[in-house]
């Protein structure tokens, strides 16, 4: 792949090869790399603000763009914040998706292959489909796919969505840190942004009393070591994540599950929180027979999160 193409997909090993001989010291200090450093900081800021970033890439800036990706990874590891780590990976993955939409089939397939996703005229392996599907509902449920001989038929959109998920995983997994980063880069605004978020999403504000009956009931079942089906666990984890609970605290709640296995549960929890799944709606909860003992408030809302937010709002007024 040409450098101008690789710059759009800087997480590929081939892209790293382009810049691996540059000196880190130069990158951090030399005026020649001003642009790369600016772009690197911007990548992180955009990720935090949930903005898209569509850069026009040509022969002149492609090396800077690849470098900026690694600088952004270095900033993320410096911050040591799991929210930022995930958000940055999602941001890079969405960018890659947009670039891929514009590519030829050959280029898109080459990028996918480099991430371990192979497509042929029959589609992708069902294992790839399971591994990278963003959730397990509707069209992403394997039972609703066209599966034959181990291959799932995928249209371009579905294929790229799977690639996006693989990018997210790849970006999150890249370990890259640099000493003395903060001496040359101004990371104050990023720090402030992160601190600001923590105030609004404080997990210590979790009020069990305000949980909707469905979530209370799933939690009670787990506490009593009743083996809650997958869909129930999923909904609860997505809900707890949605209200800002930390992964560690979610893990503690899931611990009494009979087949609890720290590694697997952690994997599942991270999978759900990492992909920022939203909590299923009341309709979906009902479909999966997870709507237990609905009360008067339930009749007026469509989503378990609305229930919680309403109750929280009411209880904060009382105080």
């Amino acid at each position, binding site marked *: 792949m040409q450098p101008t193409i690789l710059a759009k997909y800087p997480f590929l090993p081939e892209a790293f090869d382009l810049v691996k001989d540059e000196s880190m010291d130069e990158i951090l200090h030399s005026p020649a790399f001003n642009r790369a450093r600016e772009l690197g900081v911007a990548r992180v800021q955009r990720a935090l603000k949930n903005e898209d970033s569509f850069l026009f890439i040509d022969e002149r800036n492609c090396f800077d763009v690849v470098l900026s990706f690694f600088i952004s990874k270095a900033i993320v590891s410096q911050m040591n914040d799991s929210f930022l780590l995930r958000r940055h990976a999602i941001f890079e993955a969405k960018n890659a998706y947009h670039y891929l939409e514009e590519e030829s089939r050959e280029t898109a397939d080459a990028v996918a292959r480099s991430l371990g996703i192979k497509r042929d005229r029959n589609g992708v*392996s*069902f*294992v790839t489909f*399971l*591994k990278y599907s963003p959730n*397990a509902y*509707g*069209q992403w*449920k*394997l*039972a*609703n*796919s*066209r*599966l*034959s*001989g*181990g*291959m799932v*038929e995928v249209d371009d959109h579905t294929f790229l969505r799977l690639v996006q998920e693989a990018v997210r995983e790849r970006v999150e997994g890249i370990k890259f840190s640099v000493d003395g980063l903060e001496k040359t880069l101004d990371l104050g605004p990023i720090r402030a942004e992160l601190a600001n978020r923590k105030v609004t999403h404080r997990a210590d504000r979790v009020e069990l009393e305000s949980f909707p009956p469905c979530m209370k009931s799933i939690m009670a079942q787990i506490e009593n070591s009743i083996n809650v089906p*997958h869909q129930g666990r999923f909904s609860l984890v997505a809900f707890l994540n949605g209200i800002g609970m930390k992964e560690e605290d979610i893990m503690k709640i899931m611990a009494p599950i009979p*087949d609890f*296995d*720290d*590694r*697997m549960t952690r*994997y*599942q929890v991270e*999978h759900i929180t990492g992909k920022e799944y939203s909590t299923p709606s009341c309709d979906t909860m009902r479909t999966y027979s997870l709507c237990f003992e609905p009360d008067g408030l339930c009749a007026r809302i469509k989503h378990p999160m609305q229930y919680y937010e309403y109750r929280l709002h009411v209880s904060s007024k009382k105080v």
Partner: protein
Amino acid sequence: MFLQKKFKEYYSRAEIGMPRRFTRREYGFMFFERQMMLRHISFSSSQKLRNFLTEKAPAHVFYSSAYYSKPYEKEMKDKEWLGADLIFDLDADHLALPENCTYERMLGIVKNETKKLLDDFLIRDFGFDDLEVVFSGSRGYHIHIYDREVLELGSRERREIVDYVTGNGVSIELMLGKDNYAVPSVSEPGWYGRIGRAIGSYTDRILSMDDEERKKELKNVKGVGDVRAERIYEGLKRLKKEPRAVNALPKEFIEHLKDRVAIESSRGEADEPVTSDIHRLIRLPTSLHGKTGFLVKPLTLEEFDDFDPLQDAVVFGDEKVSVNVLKPFSIRIKDFSCNAEEGIVEMPEYAAVFACARGFCAEE
């Protein structure tokens, strides 16, 4: 003890089939004299496992479908999971069986379900080609799938495979399509084709009935009375000619077609907790089942077609043995059949092993 002596004889002469990467597996055993299970055992050579079996002659032998770095560790988290074969367990206990079903008939039913799971789902849809069918030694079959790409699948992914097989979560809206609302073609892959075929044959069946029969059949469906039955009949007539005419049918009736007609007739059997468990212990092929004395027999797909457990899973000889019948029973194994009453009875060794393992007899 008779059974243990016989098992010992078997293990001293048997060719024990070692599981793939057998040193990475955990083994578990149950014995004739003890209730407890001995597990977290590993073996560094096939000879060591053989020696163990010959020496202890356990009643039941299990091994993990999973591979571990340290299979001997007591705690799951210390074992360091590396991957696991994909397992399906088809057991008569989980199937709807007719009343007073004989052992032979039951085995036939389980065999058909196993065949359906293999042919329709595991081979045709999933395209697995590295798999083994094993007679469980009792009331069913195990399927072990070794295809490389399944080994690292987690519980979540395995559960999705079970949902696929059982049709759980099949969405009729997606099957009929948003833009092109129509019954899927019979030749479409996966559940699309299954829904298409099931609706097709249901339509044919209803249209071939006389008025009275048809009314009775349709009114059996919840929420269908005389008026609806007529509307459905008209709808099905149109549907026969034009797949898009599905919009002429009431929505609830389409749901009924999906759940009660299509999924019920074409779903495969799968035991969810077994398949999604990535730490499962499963019977070792070529070991003996302590509750029957039958061989836990690995079968190629060709062998499976003609397999008759009551002939082919019998490993003991036919020399005559006297046993003390504790409660009356009747059996038919190989060429031997009997209705035994209490007291001393003589029968071939293989029948005596089975009867003792079942608890019908004690050694004379």
